[in-house]
Structure formats: structure tokens, C-alpha cells
């Protein structure tokens, strides 16, 4: 498990258990309206740990372009972010910082474990290893797991869709296998 965070355990900030109160206004259409908006603007936090972060950068650039779905606003401050992509190996040294960033994010927040290291430790899981957290779900609750080593940018996009589906219960975009592929033309053979 993670080393105890010296700042969180210090006496000057009391750690209180959050009490979930029932919502004051609980109207179904209103909740649905806000959920749609939350799903359509998932702002990720600028936070990468290892090589999967390169794929995260790639997914925000040309060709894959996460901006099409409104999720390209990488916020530097955790206070303004909704989505934490844990991209890469979580070492025990990094774990307190990760937990702290998660706790700094305000309430409707989602975590995506990207890559095998973040899911289960990946290639770093062996007997007597001492430096790696085996799965980020030991630290923070994870909404969506995106497997791969590293996953393709399309897989990260699919992870974003999965979070949107988790928020709304509806998938907005067609699945890749449902799109009829254009008929492949036979390649002209080289003379």
C-alpha cells in the first residue's frame, strides 16, 4: 500500500469522513440535463506517469483528436478537472501525490486506469517487488479500465466513451464494429 501522506496525516488538517446528504432538488429531467453536460465536457487533468501518457498526448493531437468529443481541455489544476487518466506505472513514491490530486478534484469526478501497469501492475508484478503499486484501484476508485501496453489512442477514446456511457446509461456514438466498412478495393498489383 501507499506510504502515508505526511500532509494528509498531519494534525492541522483533520481528515473528516464525508457524509452524503440527500439532494435538495431531485428532478429527473434536471439530473439528466446536467449528466448530459457532464458527459459531453470531461476535462482531464494534465497528469501522466509513464509511456501511456505519450498515448494520452497522441489522443489529443491530430488524427485521433479527443477534442471532437469536448474532452481536450487539459486543466493544469485539479480543482477544475473532472477526469483523471492514470496513465502509467504508479510507484509507491508517486502514490501519495496521486491520491492527493484525486482528493483535490471537486465532486463529479471520474478515474480511468490506462494501461496494464495502472490496472494491475503489468510487467512490474512479480515476487518481492518493492516499488510499484499493483493496480491504481488500491488507491482510488476506478471507473473504467483501458487495457493495453500501452493502449492505442483509439482505446483511450473508447475509454472516454465508456465513462460517458457510465454517466448517462446511453452510448451516443456508434461502435466501431457496427460501422459498415467501405468495400475494400483490390490493390493494383505492381508490375
Amino acid at each position, binding site marked *: 500500500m501507499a506510504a502515508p501522506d505526511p500532509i494528509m496525516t498531519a494534525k492541522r488538517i483533520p481528515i473528516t469522513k464525508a457524509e452524503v446528504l440527500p439532494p435538495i432538488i431531485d428532478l429527473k429531467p434536471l439530473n439528466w440535463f446536467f449528466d448530459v453536460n457532464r458527459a459531453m465536457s470531461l476535462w482531464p487533468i494534465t497528469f501522466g506517469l509513464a509511456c501511456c501518457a505519450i498515448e494520452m498526448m497522441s489522443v489529443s493531437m491530430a488524427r485521433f483528436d479527443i477534442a*471532437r468529443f469536448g474532452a481536450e481541455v487539459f486543466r493544469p489544476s485539479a480543482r477544475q478537472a473532472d477526469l483523471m487518466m492514470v496513465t502509467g506505472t504508479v510507484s509507491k513514491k508517486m502514490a501519495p501525490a496521486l491520491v492527493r490530486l484525486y482528493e483535490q478534484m471537486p465532486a463529479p469526478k471520474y478515474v480511468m486506469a490506462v494501461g496494464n501497469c495502472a490496472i494491475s501492475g503489468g510487467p512490474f508484478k512479480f515476487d518481492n517487488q518493492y516499488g510499484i503499486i499493483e493496480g491504481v484501484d488500491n488507491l482510488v476508485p476506478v471507473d473504467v479500465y483501458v487495457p493495453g501496453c500501452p493502449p492505442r489512442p483509439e482505446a483511450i477514446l473508447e475509454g472516454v466513451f465508456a465513462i460517458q456511457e457510465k454517466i448517462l446509461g446511453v452510448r451516443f456514438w456508434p461502435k466501431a464494429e457496427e460501422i459498415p466498412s467501405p468495400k475494400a478495393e483490390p490493390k493494383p498489383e505492381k508490375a
Partner: protein
Amino acid sequence: MELSLLSFVQIIIACLLIIGLMVGNAVIMVYIERKAAGFIQRRPGPYEVGPRGTIQAICDAMKLLGKQLFIPGNVDWALYFLAPVLAFLPVLVLFLPIPFGKYLTTLQVDDGILLILAFAGLGVISNILAGWASNNKYGLLGAARAVAQSVAYEIPMIMALLAVVFLTGSLNLTAIVERQGTWPWEWNIAYQPLACFIYFVSLVGETNRAPFDLPEAESELTAGFHTEYSGMGFALFFLSEYANMLLVSFVCATFFLGGYRGPILDGFWWTFIKAYAVMCVIVWLRWTFPRVRFDQLLNINWKWLLPLSILNLWVTAIIIKFID
């Protein structure tokens, strides 16, 4: 100007319209900015949310509205809540003397530009308060940078505007527009190209936009003065940033680009076309240039813009003296 009931009602209606303009402007500009970022980086930008991504900005605003209200530990909560509101309020006053059309001015005052320059300084106070109250070292550093930058860039800005005021002989914005002709070569940009350039550079510095966005530089200060703000506090800072951009663009259009006068048909549409053209150039700049270092930022100002603007003012004064 006598304060009658009619003028009071007129100002109230104008303020409501200005609030509508600010909100609509923020929604449109967020979309334009993200689209422009996409096109400059050869990707489509927001595309799927609404037809071609047009309701993306509204979704973002609604999401920010639905975020958790959050007070970090050890903040000065009165100032913490006051700062975003204070960033938003002076902008209302700033739009009062802007002549959108010939008779479309909220408040016809003789020293309109003085009013704008006086109240524009209030914007930086909200940045200081935000940085100070949020009890965060990055916030405080961002606030300190905002002060140094705003104070520095206000001086060449005033000097550049003063050159135009010399040319016109009036501080009234409507008089400044009236003096300019209808064709582009009769506008003040043709008579004062250097002043226009200096004003443009300092308006980018004054509104904390890239390449001069040092107060919120992501790579060194997490998010600058609004690091600790989430949800609506952050949204209000964003709104006021876009409103300030709109204001300086309107001042630029009024002073240098002929305001509501255009080649074909005079009217408020020309003001809006010119102001939004300036805005688009600011967005274009943001996605083109890398961020400058802080010493470079201040060196550009104190070693180049200020001497140049003083020289420009001096030459203008001499020419006016000898020609008139």
C-alpha cells in the same frame, strides 16, 4: 449629462444588454478559440457535441455550474468568494462609453477613454485578491506576476492611445470615430501605425493572453491565480477574461480602425466586425507563438514599447504643432 429617470432606465437596459453581450461573447469565443486551435493544429476541434460542436461551450458552462462548491482549507473565504465577482463587475462600467453606433452609446461622456483606463485597473485587483485569498503559493506568484505585467503594459497602452487623442483633440470616443474617414486609408491606423502596433502588443499583455499569459502559465505555476477555483468561480474568471478581450478589441476598433464607419454603410455592424476581427487575431496569436519568459516580457515592455511610444507621441506632437 443630467440624471433623469429616462437616462437611468436607459443605463439599466444598456447594462442588461451588455451582460447579454458578455455571456454570448464568451460562448462564441470559447467555440471559436477551440475550433481555431483545432484548425491550426490540423484537427477538427469540437465536432460531435451539437451540429459541428456548436453547443460545446454551453455544455462546458452547464457542467461548471453543476460542479461541487468547494472551499479549500485555510482560505480567506470572504475574499475567496469576492474575487471572481469583482473580476466580473468593472467590465460593466467599461462598456458604458463605447460607441457601438453613432447614437448607440450608453453614456455620452466627454472623457470616455479616461473612464475606461481608470476602471480597467480594477481588473488586476481581483487577480491579486484571488491569488492572495486562496492561500496557495502558485496563486500568490501568479497574482504577483499579474500585477507586474498589468502595471507595466498599461503605460505604453496609454501612450499609444494618447497619440490618437492628440490627433483628434478630444477624449470622447464618438468624436474620435467621427474624425476618421470611411475608407481604411482614412482610419487612424494609417496615420498612427506605430501607435496601433504598440497598442496591439500591450492589449495582449494587458488581457493576460498568450504569448503573454504569464499569470496563468501552466508549466511553472499550476494555473496561476485561479488555481484553487473550481466550478463557477473559475467560470466567472473565464467570462471576465473574454469580456476584457472584447473590450480592448472594441477600443482598438474605435481608436484605430474607424469604429462604426465603414466603406459601404455606417452602423454598429462595422464596430462588431472590426472588434471580432481583432479578437480572431488575438486567438491566432495565442496558438502561434510560444510563451515568453518573464524577464523577456518585461524587457519587451520597458526597453522597446515604452521608448517607442514616447518617441511616437513626441513626433506626433511636433507634427501637429507645425502643421496646424
